C-alpha cells in the first residue's frame, strides 16, 4: 500500500529562543500545519506578518483525504501565488453523473459559464496540496515553520496568549498576540479554551479506498445510489492524479470498521465494482463516520479558530478544506490591519460574524446532502428512491437529487462591514459577495480581473477614470483600478458581470469581496465605506 507517494520527512529544528531559554513574542502563532494552517501562515507571511507555524508531526497528510478543490479556494491560492502547480498537477473536472441502480439518473456541469481563470474544480490528493503549501511557506520569509512542536497548554491575557510547546528538546513557552488554531476536528486548542462544539452526528460508516489503476474512465464524478455492485448503499468513483482513483462505499452503521479495513474484505468490494478483469492496487484504505457541527464562536479572546477546528461537515460536497481556505482568506487581512494598528480590534469580531454565517450555510447544505444520501427512516428512503426514479424521466426531479452540493462560496450579505446599496444594481455582485472573475487585457496582454484585486482595498471604476490614484481612511488606502485605463474589458464580461455602466464604482476588500458600490465616485462616501469595511 501507499506505493505512489513517498512521504517527506521534514527536519525538526530547535528554535533559537528554546535553545537560549528566552521568551519570544510573535504577532501570530498558527497551530497545525494541515492545509488550513499552511494557508494561514502563507497568507500572513506574504502580507509581511511574522508568523510562527507549529505542527506536532513532521510530514504531510497520510492518505489522499481531502481531494476536491473548488474554484474559490483556487482563486485564493492564486492570490497567494501557488495555484499554478496545483492546477497543473490536479485533475480538472466539471461533469458529475448520478446513477440509480444501473441507470443514469442525473448529470450536472459545474462550470456552465466560461471566463474564469480558475477551473471549476480539481482533484488533488491532500498530501500533494500540503507539500506545495509547505514549499510556498519555505519560500516566504515571514513564515517560521516548526515541525515536532506540540502545544500542550494555553493561557490567555488581555493583549496576548502564552503557549507551552513541547519539542524533542523539552517544553518551552512562547507568546503570541494572536493564535490561529488550525488543529483539525479534534482540536486540542478548542478544548483548552473550553469552547463548545455541537451539532449532529450521523450513524453511518463509509469506506474510502484509493486504488491505483490504468483506466480510461473520464475525469467525472460518478455517484451511485443502490448500484448492482453494492446493493442498498451508495458508492462514489473519482479520479485523482498519478492514476489514483478514489472509491467510497457506504457501509451502514453496523459495519465493523476494523474488519472492513482489511484488504481481504476491501478487495472483493472493489472487484465487484470494477470487474474481475481490471488490474489495480490498493493504495490506502480508511473508514470514516461523520458529524456536522461547529464551534460556538470562531473567536475566543486572542485565539481564533479556522478550518475543521471550527466546523466539521460531512464529506459530501467537498466543504471541509474548501471552506477552511475561505476562513483563512477572511481572517488574514483583518489580522494584518489590526496588528498594524490601522483597524480596531473589533474587526476581528467580524471574522466570527462572517465565517460563522458561512459555516452555518455549509452545515445546512452538508446536512441536507447527508439526509438524502443516508435516509434516517424507511419513509425517507422511499422519498429518496422516488426522487431518483422520477429524475430518470422528468426534468423537475433532477434538481432534487442531492449527492452532495459541491462547495460554492457563501456571500456575507448581512455583514456589518458592508455598505448597503443606495443605487439600483442588477446582477450577482451584491455587497458581501466574492468578486467574480472575468477576462481582461492589461497593457495589451490577456489576463484576469482577480489578478488585479486582493491583498489591499481596490476601487474598481467603470467609465471615465477618476483623477485620484486612491482614497484613504487613516492609513488604509483603496487603490483605483480603472476599467478602460488600467485594464480593458476584453470580452464585455466584466461590464456584464458587474452591471458596470459608466460611473459605476466598486469598493473591493483585500479578500476580493465587495464592500460597497455606487453609480458615482464620491470620495467622502468611499472613505466612510472604507472605514466601515475596516470595522470602525
Amino acid at each position, binding site marked *: 500500500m501507499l506505493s505512489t507517494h513517498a512521504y517527506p520527512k521534514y527536519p525538526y529544528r530547535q528554535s533559537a529562543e528554546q535553545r537560549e531559554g528566552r521568551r519570544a513574542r510573535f504577532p501570530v502563532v498558527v497551530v497545525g500545519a494541515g492545509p488550513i494552517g499552511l494557508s494561514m501562515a502563507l497568507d500572513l507571511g506574504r502580507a509581511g506578518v511574522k508568523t510562527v507555524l507549529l505542527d506536532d508531526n513532521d510530514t504531510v497528510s497520510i492518505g489522499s483525504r481531502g481531494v476536491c478543490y473548488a474554484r474559490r479556494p483556487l482563486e485564493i491560492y492564486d492570490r497567494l501565488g501557488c495555484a499554478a502547480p496545483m492546477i497543473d498537477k490536479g485533475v480538472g473536472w466539471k461533469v458529475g453523473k448520478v446513477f440509480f441502480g444501473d441507470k443514469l439518473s442525473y448529470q450536472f456541469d459545474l462550470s456552465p459559464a466560461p471566463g474564469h481563470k480558475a477551473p471549476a474544480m480539481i482533484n488533488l490528493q491532500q498530501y500533494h496540496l500540503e507539500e506545495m503549501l509547505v514549499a510556498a511557506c519555505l519560500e516566504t520569509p515571514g513564515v517560521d515553520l516548526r515541525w515536532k512542536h506540540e502545544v500542550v497548554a494555553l493561557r490567555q491575557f488581555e493583549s496576548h496568549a502564552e503557549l507551552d510547546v513541547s519539542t524533542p528538546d523539552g517544553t518551552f513557552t512562547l507568546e503570541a498576540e494572536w493564535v490561529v488554531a488550525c488543529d483539525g476536528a479534534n482540536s486540542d486548542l478548542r478544548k483548552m479554551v473550553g469552547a463548545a462544539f455541537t451539532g449532529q452526528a450521523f450513524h453511518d460508516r463509509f469506506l474510502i479506498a484509493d486504488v491505483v489503476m490504468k483506466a480510461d474512465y473520464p475525469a467525472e464524478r460518478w455517484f451511485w445510489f443502490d448500484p448492482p455492485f453494492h446493493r442498498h448503499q451508495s458508492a462514489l468513483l473519482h479520479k485523482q492524479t498519478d492514476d489514483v482513483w478514489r472509491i467510497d462505499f457506504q457501509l451502514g452503521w453496523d459495519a465493523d470498521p476494523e474488519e472492513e479495513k482489511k484488504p481481504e474484505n476491501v478487495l472483493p468490494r472493489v472487484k465487484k465494482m470494477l470487474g474481475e478483469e481490471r488490474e489495480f492496487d490498493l493504495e490506502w484504505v480508511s473508514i470514516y463516520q461523520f458529524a456536522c457541527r461547529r464551534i460556538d464562536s470562531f473567536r475566543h479572546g486572542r485565539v481564533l479558530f479556522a478550518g475543521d477546528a471550527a466546523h466539521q461537515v460531512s464529506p459530501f460536497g467537498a466543504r471541509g478544506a474548501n471552506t477552511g481556505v475561505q476562513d483563512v482568506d477572511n481572517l488574514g487581512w483583518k489580522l494584518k490591519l489590526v496588528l498594524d494598528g490601522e483597524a480596531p480590534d473589533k474587526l476581528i469580531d467580524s471574522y466570527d460574524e462572517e465565517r460563522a454565517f458561512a459555516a452555518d450555510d455549509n452545515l445546512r447544505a452538508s446536512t441536507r446532502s447527508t439526509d438524502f444520501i443516508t435516509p434516517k427512516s424507511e*419513509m425517507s428512503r*422511499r*422519498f429518496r*428512491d*422516488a*426522487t431518483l*426514479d*422520477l429524475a430518470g424521466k*422528468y426534468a*423537475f*426531479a433532477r434538481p*432534487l437529487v442531492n449527492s452532495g452540493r459541491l462547495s460554492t462560496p457563501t456571500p456575507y450579505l448581512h455583514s456589518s462591514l458592508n455598505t448597503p446599496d443606495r443605487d439600483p444594481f442588477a446582477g450577482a455582485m451584491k455587497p458581501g459577495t466574492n468578486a467574480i472573475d472575468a477576462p481582461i487585457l492589461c497593457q495589451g496582454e490577456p489576463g484576469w480581473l482577480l489578478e488585479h484585486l486582493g491583498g489591499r482595498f481596490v476601487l474598481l471604476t467603470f467609465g471615465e477614470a477618476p483623477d485620484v490614484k486612491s482614497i484613504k481612511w487613516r492609513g488604509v488606502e483603496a487603490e483605483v483600478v480603472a476599467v478602460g485605463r488600467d485594464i480593458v474589458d476584453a470580452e464585455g464580461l466584466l461590464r456584464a458581470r458587474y452591471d458596470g455602466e459608466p460611473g459605476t464604482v466598486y469598493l473591493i476588500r483585500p479578500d476580493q469581496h465587495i464592500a460597497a458600490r455606487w453609480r458615482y465616485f464620491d470620495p467622502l462616501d468611499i472613505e466612510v465605506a472604507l472605514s466601515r469595511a475596516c470595522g470602525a
Partner: protein
Amino acid sequence: MKLTLEPNLADPDGFYQALIDSQRDMSDEEASAMNCRLILILANHIGDLEVISEALAAAGGKV
C-alpha cells in the same frame, strides 16, 4: 393562509375513485412508492413553498 382547504374538486367522487383505482392492484410497498412519487409531482406542480409548508402542517395535524 394561501392553501385551499375548502372544496376545490369539481367531481369529488370521480377523483377519489381515480386515486383508489390507480393503486388497486399494487402491494403496499408499490403503493407507498407511488405515493412518494405523487407527492413530489404535485409539490412541483404547486411550486409555492408557502403553500406546500401549509399543506405539510395541515397534513401533519399541526394546524
